[in-house]
Structures are given as C-alpha cells and as structure tokens.
C-alpha cells in the first residue's frame, strides 16, 4: 500500500525524465535508425543526429565486430548547455536538451563542447545531387521543413523526436529499429522498462569520465 502511495506521489510530483537504452547485443548495424531519423527530421546532407559507429576488437580468427548507435545523450549535465553564450540550449523539465532556434547565434561552441559529437551546424543546404543541380522537389520540401524547425546556421541536435513523443509516440529511431535494440522510456520511474533493463543488465554509459551523466545507456554482451 505504501509503495503504491509513493508511486502516485512520484507520478504527480516528479516529471518524466526521458532516457534510452540501446541493446548492443541486438544491434547489427543496419543504419535503419540513421535513415529513420533523417526521414523524420528532414536533416540536411551531412547531418546525422542518429549515427552508427563500427569497431573491431581482436584479430582473425577471433575478431569481433560491434556496432554502436550514437545520438544526443540528453545529458543530465550537458556541456553544450554550459558553454552556450546566449541561452539557446536549454534543458526541459523532462530532461530533454533542446535548442531554441531564435536564440542561437551559430557560434558553434556547443559543437566543440559536446564530447559525443552530437551537434551539427550547416552553413547552407547543399543538394544531394552532383554538378550543381537544383534541389529536387523533395529536397525543397525538406529544406522548408528544416528551416521552420531548426534553420541554417543554427547548431542543431537530436531532441528524441519531441514532436512525436508529445503525441505519445516513440522517437523515429526507436520505431524503425528492426531488431528492437532501442528502448525509450522514463528514466526516473524505477518500474519503467528502461530502468529495469539498466538495473538488471548493468547498463553502461559511453565514456563516463566525461562527467556529463548521459541518459542513453548501453547493454553490452558479457
């Protein structure tokens, strides 16, 4: 009874703290997350809010290849927010770090401050196609959507697909993952799927020595 009461009090007083778990045992590096992110957020060429890095350990015949999906870690202590001179980078109550585009002057200091390389800035929208061809109708549409949401010259980043999660949906990369390697949820709720997974499988963060306290955890094969 006490536990139920405690849970009710928490749900009323504590806002969700969104986080993500990426199960590296399931990820096989198909880049579906990268593509889904680009499709959902209409990011310009060269901008990958959701990336996949590859690594290899050992030598033949005992070599292991491992994929590592990387995105904005929505850090508890984001160094990008710390260095932002204008206050454009902010952390919402739900823990998601956002960029207020009308406040960003494009100094790119946040790009230098993020040790995970999660931030991007583009000076101009270049076509995917060669030889100086004009933008295709799809690119024109993407550019228009991008400029409304982020804009050229603004240092942008992943926001866990804020527009989707505010509608109760999951981020595009989570929905698209064919291996169900990505789990999105409330980090502050001890009974949420991600909290249980982090505890049960001893989830780890990337480079904890950076001190940013990321909220993206990785489950690693043992």
């Amino acid at each position, binding site marked *: 009874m006490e536990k139920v009461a405690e849970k009710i009090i928490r749900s009323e007083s504590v806002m969700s703290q969104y986080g993500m778990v990426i199960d*590296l045992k399931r990820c096989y590096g198909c880049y579906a997350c990268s593509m889904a992110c680009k499709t959902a957020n209409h990011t310009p060429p060269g901008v990958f809010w959701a990336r996949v*890095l*590859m*690594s290899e*350990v050992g030598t033949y015949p005992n070599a292991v290849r*491992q994929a*590592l999906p*990387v995105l904005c870690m929505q850090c508890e202590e984001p*160094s990008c927010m*710390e*260095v*932002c*001179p*204008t*206050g*454009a980078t902010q952390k919402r109550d739900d823990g998601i770090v956002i960029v207020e585009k*009308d*406040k*960003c*002057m*494009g*100094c*790119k*200091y946040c*790009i*230098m*401050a*993020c*040790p*995970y*390389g999660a931030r991007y*800035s583009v*000076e101009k929208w270049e076509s995917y*196609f*060669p*030889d100086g*061809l004009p933008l295709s109708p799809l690119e024109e549409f993407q550019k228009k959507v991008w400029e409304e949401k982020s*804009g*050229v*010259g*603004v*240092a942008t980043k992943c926001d866990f697909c804020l527009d989707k999660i505010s509608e109760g949906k999951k981020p595009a990369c989570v929905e698209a993952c064919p291996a169900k390697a990505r789990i999105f949820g409330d980090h502050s709720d001890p009974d949420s799927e991600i909290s249980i997974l982090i505890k049960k499988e001893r989830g*780890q963060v*990337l*480079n904890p020595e*950076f001190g*940013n306290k990321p909220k993206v955890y*990785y489950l*690693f094969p043992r």
Partner: protein
Amino acid sequence: MDPKVNGQLQHDWGWLIAVYLFLGGVGGGAYTIAAINSFTDASPVLSTTVGLWIAFPALLVGTVFLIADLGSPTRAFLAGMKPGTSWIARGTWIISAFMVLSFVHLILHQYTNVGETSGGATLINVIAVAGIIFAIGTMAYTGILLGASKGIPFWRSGIVPVVFVVSATVTGHFAIMLGMALFGDTAGLVMPFKTMALEAAGLVVLEVLAILFFLQAAFRQPDPRESAERILRKRMFVIGYFLFGLAVPLGLMLFLYSITLETGSTKIPVVITGAILGLIGGLILRQAVLICGALPTLNIAGFEFRRIHRPKEPKPGIGMLPPQ
C-alpha cells in the same frame, strides 16, 4: 599517413576563428606593452603610440571576423547573455570592456593634452591599469575558450592559455616593432630597437618552451596525441611556424641586437622581416591548433569507437561519360 592517425577532426572552426584569436591576441599584447611603456617612460614614447594605434583596430577587425563566422550574425548581440557559465559570453564582456578602454586611452593619448595635467595623468594611469587587466584577460581568454571545449581533448589543457598569452605578447611586441619601423624616425629607433630586439628574443624563447611543453603534455594521452601527431606532420606548422615563425625571427632579433650593440645603428629591413615572420607565425599557430583538433575516442566495455576522418570527395557526375 600512419593508419592510426586518422581520427575525425573538428571542421566547424576554421580560419575566420583563427584570425579572430590572432587579432585578439595582437591587440591584447600590443596594448599591454604600450601601457607598461607609458608607465616606465616619463615622456610619451613611440612604442606607446604605436601600441595604442594597433590595439583598438586589431580588436575591432578581429570582432568582425568572429561575427562573420557566426551562423546567424544578426543575433551576435545575444553573445553575452550567460557569463556565468560560457567563456564566449565572458569573453564578449572582457573584449567589450577592453575595446572601450583601449579606444578611450588612444583618444586621450593622441588627441588631447589631458596627460599634461596631474589629474589627467592619473586618469590615464587608471585607464591604463584597467586596460592592462582586460588586455591580459583578452589574451588568456582566447586560450581558455579552447581549453573549455570538452569535445576536443587536444585543447583541454591548462597549458593552452599559457601558450596563447605568451604568443599574444610575442605578436603584440612584433606588431609594435613593425609599426615603429614603418612610421618612426630611423635615427631615434636605435636604442629602442636594441632593447626591444632582446625582449623579443626572450619572448620567442619563452614561446618555444611553452609550445614544447604543450606538445609534450599532449603526447602523454592517446586522444590529444592524435592531434599532436597531426600538427607535427603539417608542413605549415613545422616549416611555417617553428622555422619561419619562431627560429628565423629569433635569429634576426639576436642579429639585430648584436648589430646595434656593435655599430650603434639599426637595420630596419631586419626588424620588418623578423616582425612580419613573427606575426605570420602567431596566425599559423592558432590555425594549426584549431584545425588539428580531433574528436575523442568513444569507448564502452573494452571496445573503442574512433570517429574516422574521411576527406570530402567530389560528388560523382550523373550520366556523364569519362573524358575521351
């Protein structure tokens, strides 16, 4: 190239920021030397006048380069909003205060007789002291700005601000010598150049020590080591900076000192050559430190994920036949 030295480099801060850091350093260095000279000499000396004429314009032009690098230059006025945590915001206030002080000092020194009265002289001295504080702040800030960038391990060194302060003083010193050589009366420059050549040589030696210490510290850790190896493979750095930006000016300054000592005359072309090379060296240093900033290796449970540098390849043509 060694296959291990292939980490992804930052590409968002380029030569516009390098010029900004350089001019900020030149302005700060020139002002500090000019203001100190104004205390030590009873009568207004040429080095003070030249230094004041360099400081404010250098800062102004440097700021133009910084604004030109912004993604949204029209929002530059927001730059000082968060001085509590951001070094760009702090730097904005430091440089703004320094620009105002250096401009007021220049006007009072050049266009008024305020310094001739005791009250006026006190006022100028107060401005000069405050100006020196903000000038040192500007020189140090250009290094601290980089040192506070968590995403570039090469810059995350307490030695970077020291290197930048020393280099800023050297470039400021050379800028003053260049200005004096171009605009001063040759006969009156023998004694000043004798002293200044020795000072310049000493400062260059200090810069050599600072940069060697910085690189040696970088070689001790894997991520900064990547950048240190890259910087030492750059001809621009080894030949442009070490040889022509440090060694040659050092040799020329020692030569100038010995000539002045022996003959009692000075060699203006030597001053001009040494000063220009020293200034170019200061710019190369900043550009090299910026462009060799490699991203850190990400690691988890024994796996290392290095972000690999891939040079931008030209896009292939569509439906184009190879040239016949």
